[in-house]
Each structure stands twice: as C-alpha cells, then as structure tokens.
C-alpha cells in the first residue's frame, strides 16, 4: 500500500504488470520507458534471462513533484510469468496499488490467461489485496498477430466483470500508454481520498496523469 513518508515528504506508489509467461509484460515496460516523458524518470532495471524470461522483476521508476513539494514515486514492476516462480510473483505483487493484467490475445493462450488471472486473484488474497478495492486494468496484448481471439469475444467475456479491457500491441507501441493512463486514473481515484492529493497537495488528476505521462499523443 502506498504511504506518505512525512519526514522525507515522499509517496511511493507501486504498480504491477501481471500475466502469463511471454504475454509481453516486459515489452509493455520498455514501451512505456520509451514513450513516457514524466517529470522524473530513472533508469530502467531489467532482469531478463537469455530466453526473454523475467527471472525476478523489471522495474521502471517514474516520479513527479507536487507544488507542495511532495515527491511522488511511481514504480512499475513486472512479475515473472512462469508458473514456477509463484513465490517471486507473490512478493512482487505484495503492497501493489494497481495492477495491469497483460493477457496474450493468441487463441492458443486462452487457458494460460485464465490460469494466470486465477493465480493473480489467489496471490492477491494471500498478500491481503481485495479485488473490489485494488485498481485493475486488463490489457489484451499482441493484437498485431493473426491467430487471436476476436475483440467481440473478449468484450463479451469481460463485460460481466468489473474490469475494463484495453487492446494493445506493445511490440507496435499502441494501446500501452492508454492502458497505463487508465490505471493511473483508477489509482488516483483510490489514493486521493486517503492522501488528499488534490486538497492537500494541489494535485488534480489531470496533473497527476500529465506529470507521469508527459507529452504523449496517441498515434492514430
């Protein structure tokens, strides 16, 4: 959970990219690293093995300073998607303030998607995160491929759930910032009542989003 360090005047926000193995979580992060122009951006930490498999996590730190001097650090993490690394996944997920679930659109990956989403729910329960309260955005990645589940079907399947779905191709760099922006909006809504970002720190949602995304216009 995010908390304000009153002495240092910092607020740490943790956002996690979750999803099955090879669904494009790290690619999402690299894409954000390249496309975002936040107030503050630190070096990206990638801990990939040679097979493009994330072993521990990837980390992209973003930051912005409010007019009142509060330093907001937003840390974007990816989890390792492979089933075997469940304990690592759970540790990365713990104390998250928002989750982007990166699903693989390929028809062959439907089962892996649902297994991974169930795993997300299980691990959230284990680390004390409630699916009703935690902001979650679902991204159907790899829309540039051909053998993929149709948008209609995805919408039909996810409509009954409380989670919004965004279509993306991280490789082609579209849909990624939109996903991130949607999550930021949800996260702002969940944190503002607690930390009085607007009231106390003069940070309206638009500034929050702009400060972390920067000058970005969606291509097309």
């Amino acid at each position, binding site marked *: 959970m995010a908390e304000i360090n009153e002495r240092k005047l910092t607020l740490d926000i943790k956002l996690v990219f979750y999803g099955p193995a090879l669904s494009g979580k790290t690619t999402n992060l690299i894409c954000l690293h390249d496309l975002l122009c936040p107030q503050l951006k*630190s070096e990206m930490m990638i801990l990939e093995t040679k097979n493009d498999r994330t072993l*521990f*996590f990837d*980390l992209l730190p973003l930051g912005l300073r409010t007019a009142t001097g509060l*330093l907001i*650090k937003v*840390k974007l993490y990816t989890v390792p998607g492979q089933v075997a690394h469940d*304990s*690592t996944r759970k*540790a990365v997920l713990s104390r998250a303030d928002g989750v982007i679930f990166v699903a693989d659109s390929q028809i062959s990956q439907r089962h892996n998607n649902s297994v991974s989403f169930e795993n997300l729910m299980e691990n959230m329960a284990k680390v004390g995160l409630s699916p009703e309260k935690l902001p979650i955005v679902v991204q159907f990645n790899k829309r540039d491929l051909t053998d993929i589940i149709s948008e209609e079907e995805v919408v039909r399947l996810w409509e009954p759930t409380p989670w919004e779905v965004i279509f993306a191709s991280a490789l082609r760099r579209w849909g990624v910032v939109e996903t991130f922006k949607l999550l930021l909006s949800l996260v702002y809504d969940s944190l503002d009542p607690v930390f009085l970002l607007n009231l106390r720190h003069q940070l309206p949602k638009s500034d929050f989003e702009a400060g972390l995304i920067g000058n970005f216009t969606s291509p097309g």
Partner: protein
Amino acid sequence: MSNAKENLSTEVFDSILDVPELLQVIDKNKLGNILDDLLNQQYQLRDNHGVLVCGASELIDYLPVSIEHDFEEILQLRLAKSQEKKRNIAHQLLEVLVNNAIRYTMTSRLHIQAIKDDYQQLAAEHRALEISKAKYKALSEQLEERVQEQVLEIQNTQLKLYKSEKMSAIGQLAAGMAHEINNPIGFIRSNLVLFRDYTEQLPMLKAAMDTGDTQKVRQSWEEGQLDYALEDFPELIAESLEGTARIADIVSSLKDFSNIDHNADVEADINTIVTTTCAVASNIVDTGISIVTDLQELPEINCRPGLIGQAFLSLLVNAADAVDRKNGRIRIETEFQDRAIRIRVIDNGIGILTENLNRVTEPFFTTKDVGKGVGLGLSICQDIVVAHNGSIDITSQPGQGTSVQISLPAG
C-alpha cells in the same frame, strides 16, 4: 497476524533502501583506491546522512555532485575545484556502482523472500503430509491388528474342523462297529429266546417224572418238543459262541486301536498298526470290497502308533471311497528297503485328475460329496508323516486307480 505484518514491512524486497546497507555491497577500500587515483585524493564521498565513505578528511572548496536513487540523493561526491574536469566520469562511475548495488540488493532480497515463502509452503505441505502419514500409520497398525484377529479366528476354526474331522472319523467307525456288534447280538439274543422257550418245558417234564409214570413223561417230552431241542441245542450254542467270539474280536481290535492312540513315541511294528487298522476298517468298508495285504517283515521304529494308525486309516477310507462298492480292490503293501519303511495303499478306484493331484494334500480340498468329509484327511495324513520325517507320494491314473505311498525313515 501483527507479526506477519511487521515482517512484511521490514523484509519486503522493495522496501526503502538504506544507504549503509547499500554500501555494504560495495567494497569501500577498492572504491576509495579507484577514486583516490582518479581524483588525486582531492574529494570526499559522503552518504545521505553526511557520513564520510572515503576520500580526503578535509576539503575546503568543493563542487557537490549528487548521485541519486529514486529521485533522491543517496551519495554526495564533493569534488575539489581542481578535479572539475573529471566530474562526469566520476558521476557515471558512482552511478553504475550504485545501480548495480541496488540491483544486487533488491534481487537478493527478493530471492530470499521467495525462498522463505517456498520453504514455508513446503513446511506446510510437509506438516500436512506428516499428519496424513500418521493417519495412515495408525490405520495400518489397526489393519495389522485386525488381520491378526482374523488369522486367530481362522486358526481357531481350522482347529475345530480338524477336531471335527477326527470326531467324524471316530463317529463313522463307531457306527460301523455298532452295526457289526449288533448282528451277532441279534442272533445270540434270538438263540437265547429259543433256549428259554425250551427250558420253560422242563418244570412240566419234572412233574411228569415225579409221578413215576413213564407214559406221562414221554407225553410231556413230546408236548415240549424236546426232541427238537436236543437237535437244536448244539447248533444254538455253537452259533452263539461264534457270535460272542466275533464280538470279542471286534472289541479286541477296537481296544488295540484305542490303545495305540497314546501320543507318546514308542518302538512299534508298523505291520501291527496296519493289521489293527485294517481290522477296524473292515467293519466300515462295504463287504463287496476286497482288501488284500502283502506285509513284509519290518524293523520296529520309534513312532507315535496312534497317529500312524490315523494316517493309514484315512488312506484306507479314501481308497474305499474311491473304489466300486461291489467289486473294488484295495491292496496294502509294506516293505523295508534302503533304510526306509514303505506303506502302500493301492486301489483300482476312480483315480485323481491330474490338475487335482497337487492339491489333494491342501487343507479343505475335497472332491467328495458333501457330508463325506471336509477335505482334511490327506492333509492331516501328510502332517503326521512329515512329523515323522517321512514323505507321501501319490500317483494316480484317472479311471485306473491310485497308489499312495508313505515312506518313513527306519534304522
């Protein structure tokens, strides 16, 4: 629960990095040497608490270079003006160092956290397994107990059946005996009745004799049909005596048979046991069956005659059951050869099917009709022979007959 939360806040891999902890990862001596060389010892490196990490102890005029982590200063390099040119290279060097240290620290923390978690999961699984193991162990112990109970029950039942088999043999024997004894008793009794009838005439004859009248005496003699009596008497007496002799014979063989039923080891002649047993068996074997014996001279052996008799009797009964009731033949042979006594019972009965030959000595194996035995005869027979260190060989031709040979060590 509160403990778990405490652990969570202090041990999670991405909790705020403390600079002293971070610097532990970096070899401060080597770093100092490198920076000393690079910056001609005209610098100071301080952490974010202001503590000197390495460099000159005093530095008056300096340029501050900030090394940041998470948008916050983590180290400050104070650079003497003379070293200003090396500002960028020094900054880059320290940034690489710090980034690697952070990377190392975060991954190792995460690794430890994951391993601890895995361990806890394994420990929980282990506990669950231990519990189920204990459950199965208890169950298996109970099973052992139950199996032992059942074994005991089966043993008891077997014992009862062994006894009942013995009792039924005795019962069969007793029934045969009763029949054989009843026959002579029947005719002896009717002879005696006849005798009594004749002797009842004697008082009348005496009264006639007392009158002294020969005519009356003769009349009384004739009325009493005493001429017939005189004729009958020797025959009646001879017949009755023969009957009592037969009864005496039966009783005597039975006595012998019961006498040898002492389960003590004694020196005994097998031929005597065979003869006695044959005598007993002849009473229960159908008269149409001929029993022929060919007994050769045998040395006495140390044995339990009662048991040998019982074993031999069951062979005899089996043979009698196998042969035709009207013209069956049973041949009994004994011989002494190669320091062993052999007793053979050979019949011309129905024989044993090849597939049954190996099973005939199994307890409770029987092909006889219900009520004719529970299938313990040969089994007990084998037990007895084995107890005497002997062996049983059975050869049989279905439809031709069976030969059973008991071999007992002797001499």
